[in-house]
């Protein structure tokens, strides 16, 4: 339960902008606009992490999502033909909306139905150092597996997009 008004106001403002920009990603016509709105929602989510006192995760989110993944999306959009850049919908628009509504209804019901065991500890202090210890004490194995996963993803991406001609020679 966070009560001081500054943070609450910040939370509602950031929450509304994030949800609004997420909706705009669906609604806007041009694909590049959609990517830019997506970046806005990523930054909004980072704001929410700061409100929930997860400062390292917020900065990592900006660095990885807003910095790198958005550039990946921009490259993908530019490499694909200009013709398909309209952000148009398929025939499944209506059923998709219904399904989204149902999922939303179910989750909201579950949220308010279960009685969560609220902890009493307040804001976390600086989380970077303790996160680092967490990565090397209890979570050392997933940490190594994650690095293997990243290398595999990189090699896979390069193999997929390699043209026949280039055999990697400079």
């Amino acid at each position, binding site marked *: 339960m966070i009560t001081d008004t500054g943070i609450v106001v910040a939370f509602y403002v950031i929450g509304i902008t994030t949800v609004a920009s997420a909706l705009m990603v669906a609604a806007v016509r041009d694909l590049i606009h959609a990517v830019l709105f997506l970046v806005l929602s990523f930054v909004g989510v980072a704001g929410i992490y700061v409100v929930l006192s997860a400062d390292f995760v917020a900065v990592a989110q900006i660095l990885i999502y807003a910095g*790198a993944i958005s550039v990946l999306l921009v490259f993908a959009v530019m490499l694909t033909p200009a013709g398909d850049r309209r952000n148009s919908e398929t025939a499944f628009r209506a059923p998709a909306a219904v399904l989204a509504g149902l999922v939303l209804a179910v989750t909201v019901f579950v949220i308010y139905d279960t009685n969560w065991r609220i902890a009493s500890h307040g804001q976390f202090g600086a989380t970077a150092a303790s996160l680092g210890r967490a990565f090397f004490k209890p979570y050392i194995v997933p940490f190594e597996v994650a690095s293997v996963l990243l290398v595999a993803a990189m090699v896979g991406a390069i193999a997929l997009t390699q043209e026949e001609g280039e055999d990697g020679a400079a």
Partner: protein
Amino acid sequence: MPALLTLITHNWYDIRDLSNLSGKIEQLIRDANGPGWLVFVVSALLGAAGIVSFIGVAAIINIWIERRVVGRMQSRLGPNRAGPFGLLQPVADAMKLMQKEVLQPKVADGLVFSLAPIAFTVPGILVMAVLPWGRNMALANVDAGVIFILALTSLGALAVFAGGYGSNNKYALFGAMRVIAMLVTYEIPSVLALLGLVLFSGTMNLSGIVLFQAKYWTPLLLVQPLPFIIYFISSSAELNRTPADLAEAESEIAGGYHVEYSGMKFGLFYAAELINAVSVSAIIATVFLGGWWFYKLDEVVPGWMIFIGKIYAVYFLFVWTRGTLPRFRIDQLLAFAWKWMTPMAFLNLVLVAAEVLIWNETGVSAGLVLPLYAVINTAFAGALIVAWVKVMGPKFSRFPERLRYYSQIDVPSLPAVAPRMDEGAPGLTEGRSA
């Protein structure tokens, strides 16, 4: 300390640390038992006002410094007409840009076209909020400060791309795609270079790094020269400054991403470039040269004055490279980042990790170990660069063969029909590079 000196120190009017002033104001509000959030808002406003005013003045002064210094390098005077020593020239430029009409091409993408310059300026200013200007004068003492800075510089890439893509013009698209490729490539060496420092000083908090340098009396530049070189080159690439100003390469793509901009939008792009340059040199000053600390000087002279002096020292380096070096080609630039800077940064990281491990395990006193590390790191940097040049250096001979001089005409007898170019016509020198 003499009586007079104690009078002005540690009181609210002690300008050595402006946080005393803001602390006094907050005290006043609390005494008048104002609402809690008012204090939060007022101190934020105070800090923001200080930074934005510094940036406004710095952008203007930088224009003047850059044009005068580059002018002197080109054996000409530089602006000296408007005002004494041309000081009002940047003001004149700004006014000219303000009253110029802002044109927008009909085919341009309105939303993206007008948002790009704003989005390009914001990261530059935000970085300033994290930097420590005095002993406890950091507006936002973010714990993961170094990662915060890197995240903001990567945001700039999107804004520049939006500008290039929005203006829907071939040259601008060229500039935009080059920027995206270049900034993403140069993010990796800069991350690794700063990581080396974080490893060494143990904290990611910028005030922490400055205090570390103050405690051990050594600016980290001396202890770790290689990360300085790597970070300087990669940040000059991210700032699109010569020798890597490929995004707005005048002689090739005539202005690159801001070719369609005019009036204050172009003014904002131009100012944003300078603001980013100031913020990057501020980062280098903080992390490598020890921000507001300077061997006892910061007790007497206000810390933030030393910090601004260091900012302009580093800024001179940027202006110097801009004034003298020609431009890379895009593929040479990217190859330089991938094949040279990233591997060097990794090797440096390994070495620094080993050094920190030894230092912590053996617990040797800093007085002995830091100069030793300084020598090792400098030797390592030099050896690595020389070895890398030998291994990966350009294939054509280092210094070209001197020209041949004929006193009489001498035309070799050659076949009349010029063999097709692609069959690799046997030129006079067999030593052609691949």
